[in-house]
């Protein structure tokens, strides 16, 4: 096989046994790789209702068919898939850097971790040799420290490491898995799943050649994309980077501020992308095989957070900045650094702190609960202290480490309403009250509140639709974007490069064919994208999620925007949400309950999964009749 390594590695951490099996070629074409292949493999290797922290919950690590090649932004990706301890549905997160390319060279399209090690271990994949090694001396270390320690003890400085930090070890539900020190498979808490398996790190060294099917045409295509990446499609990422969004969102009043109490932040200028680049960005670096480079490395040169160095993007900046009312970039950079140190999803971490501050301001929690931390909005010291407590599960951090949904339920006294999440996953930096296409995308996203499953905010932010109203047709728009995004995350190419695919899915189909030699038409690839959304939906349905979970955070539906300006009074009513959901399910060919129909599954050649939906279709029929 070209592109694909053709092998899946199984590692049973309970017994210590490992073996490989050939990659099912039909799966390769149907589910591509990355999250698509991962979700399908998870379904095959798990039982319904499995607890996310149970040894029976497999953790799947995948590469894509493009991983390992020189393809710009696509040669380096990997993905993790499992059942999320936040949503109890699909957990998936991708990351870039140099880990995925190394894993492909070691010869694997997927690694399936099952069971639970008796004591802390790390797995050392050295081409065909797979060893499970003691990790007790690595416990408590950050992912970056773990990487250094493993390289030192194995005596090879080109080993790539994906590791959890102290948060993952302590089953913090927003724990992530970090590779190459600053790159995170961030969302849905998969670091906690890794921690529940006593798996501290995965170290990889791969020495195999990667070859593509149509070499000359492929290299011509690479050259063309190198040129495209120097052009307008990537300019934002190469210059200000995603923090450019701060002033854009703020001017549209769609930047959730102080835990959704506002949609506009008066301190935005201080934390803008412009300000960040002028004052803190020391260098912009790139992932393996990338030709655009986007990773803005920030260094704090003075003040209380002097010496901090970390990558920065809009989402963490927003979450730990405006969402907490904090207008100091040095504190936000420190917060990001702490998230990397403990190994926590920085978006969720910031949103949780914002939630805690809202609880504090409303008197739901007091100084007694916070061990004296004055958790007021805008208190940057409180931000840093609360992140530390969460990473260590210390004091109030122990409750916050559960994520806003569970924390809200545990704290009670109205805290549930202050918990801004969808399916247990914390919101991201788009005010859904005034971005109604995005609101639909977020509500139906199979991994909970997230902008990266659909990118539907673009229609609203760019003014392609009236963002303040709902109407039929939005369902189809969201569906089409979702189908494209699952392809992107399965090939794995970087979403920042999506604009360079001038012909969209057609360019991607060509790329797939040139690399793998497997003929793929744009229509077939589109269908794979649709198939992956359906398999993800089936995952969620099998685990008990459904229409009731395709909803929006409490404040989005109950607390209209109060800021004077373009979005004043905006919110999403239940009626509007229902209209959007009906429209979306119809576009998807699903039932009113959001269940894929048997016809749809047949159309997508997913007959083998029909038994899962059949049961659910039966159940939902009765009350209607």
């Amino acid at each position: 096989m070209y592109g694909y390594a053709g092998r899946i590695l199984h590692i049973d951490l309970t017994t210590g046994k490992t073996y490989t099996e050939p990659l099912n070629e039909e799966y390769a074409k149907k589910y591509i790789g990355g999250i698509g292949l991962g979700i399908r493999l998870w379904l095959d290797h798990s039982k319904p209702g499995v607890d996310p922290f149970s040894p029976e919950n497999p953790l799947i690590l995948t590469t894509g068919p493009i991983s390992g090649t020189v393809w710009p932004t696509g040669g380096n990706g990997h993905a993790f898939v499992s059942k999320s301890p936040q949503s109890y549905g699909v957990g998936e997160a991708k990351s870039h850097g140099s880990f995925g390319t190394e894993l492909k060279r070691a010869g694997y399209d997927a690694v399936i971790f099952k069971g639970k090690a008796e004591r802390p271990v790390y797995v050392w994949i050295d081409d065909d040799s797979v060893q499970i090694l003691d990790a007790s001396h690595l416990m408590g270390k950050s992912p970056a420290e773990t990487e250094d320690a493993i390289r030192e003890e194995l005596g090879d400085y080109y080993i790539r490491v994906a590791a959890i930090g102290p948060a993952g070890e302590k089953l913090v539900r927003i724990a992530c898995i970090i590779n190459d020190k600053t790159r995170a498979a961030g969302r849905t808490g998969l670091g906690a799943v890794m921690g529940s398996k006593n798996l501290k790190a995965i170290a990889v060294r791969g020495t195999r050649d990667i070859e593509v099917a149509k070499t000359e045409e492929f290299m011509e295509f690479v050259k063309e994309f190198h040129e495209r990446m120097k052009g307008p499609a990537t300019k934002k990422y190469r210059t200000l980077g995603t923090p450019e969004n701060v002033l854009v969102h703020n001017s549209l009043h769609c930047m959730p501020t102080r835990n959704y109490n506002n949609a506009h932040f008066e301190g935005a200028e201080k934390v803008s992308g412009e300000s960040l680049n002028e004052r803190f960005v020391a260098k912009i670096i790139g992932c393996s095989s990338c030709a655009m480079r986007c990773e803005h490395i920030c260094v704090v040169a003075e003040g209380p957070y002097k010496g901090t160095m970390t990558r920065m993007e809009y989402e963490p900046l927003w979450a730990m900045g405006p969402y907490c009312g904090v207008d100091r970039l040095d504190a936000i950079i420190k917060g990001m650094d702490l998230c990397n140190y403990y190994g926590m999803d920085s978006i969720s971490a910031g949103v949780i702190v914002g939630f805690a501050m809202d609880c504090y301001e409303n008197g739901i929690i007091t100084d007694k609960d916070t061990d004296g931390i004055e958790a007021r909005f805008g208190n940057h010291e409180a931000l840093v202290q609360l992140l530390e407590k969460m990473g260590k599960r210390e004091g109030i951090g122990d409750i916050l480490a559960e994520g806003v949904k569970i924390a809200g339920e545990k704290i009670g006294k109205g805290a549930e309403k202050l918990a801004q999440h969808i399916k247990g996953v914390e919101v991201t930096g788009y005010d859904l009250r005034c971005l109604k296409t995005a609101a639909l995308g977020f509500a139906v996203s199979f991994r909970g509140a997230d902008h990266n499953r659909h990118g539907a905010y673009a229609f609203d932010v760019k003014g392609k639709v009236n963002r303040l109203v709902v109407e039929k047709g939005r369902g189809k728009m969201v569906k089409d974007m979702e189908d494209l995004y699952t392809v992107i995350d399965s090939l794995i190419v970087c979403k920042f490069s999506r604009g360079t695919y001038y012909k969209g899915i057609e360019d991607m189909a060509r790329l797939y064919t040139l690399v793998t030699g497997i003929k793929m038409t744009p229509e077939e690839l589109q269908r794979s994208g649709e198939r992956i959304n359906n398999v993800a939906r089936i995952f969620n349905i099998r685990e008990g999620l459904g229409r009731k979970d395709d909803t929006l955070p409490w404040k989005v539906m109950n607390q209209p925007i109060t800021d004077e300006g373009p979005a004043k009074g905006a919110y999403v009513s239940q009626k509007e949400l229902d209209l959007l959901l009906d429209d979306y399910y119809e576009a998807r060919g699903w039932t009113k309950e959001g269940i894929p129909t048997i016809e749809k599954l047949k159309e997508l050649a997913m007959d083998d999964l029909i038994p899962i939906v059949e049961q659910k279709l039966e159940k939902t029929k009765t009350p209607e009749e």
Partner: protein
Amino acid sequence: MVKIHERKFVTADPDKCVGCQVCEFICSFTKENSFNPLKSRIRVVRLNPLVNVSLSCRLCEDPPCVAACPRDALTQSEENGTILVDEDKCNGCGWCIEACDYGAIMIHPEKKVVFVCDLCKEQGEPQCVKWCPEEALDLVTSDVLAQKARIAATKKLFQEALKSTTATS
């Protein structure tokens, strides 16, 4: 023999290098028709996110790798200063690797003999330089490197003066 100040080699500007490894992929593809950094003649080092640089053979004067070879497998090209490996003589003992201060000469994972940058002799020009997306790589003489450094330093020293000249001109 070409004089040392005329000898050109591939060098990376650490200010521009972002550690993307495109040079490694292109090198292994050019020389071996596969994507495998282990077979690249140029290698990236990232010490921390801020410190990235690609390293390859610097074509030293009196190259220590040549001197270190007990089997006389290495010679320096009189034409352009590159290191030539006699694959029949090399037995992969690695003395040259130890002698090289830059880690620029390495053992080939399959052939078990050493290999080193030859400035893409067959292609006519180093492909890594051609492909580097950041234009961080350059084929230069040490003299030109020094010239560039001098100009950069002078620009820095006289930035105020330069500003006023551009303003008035």
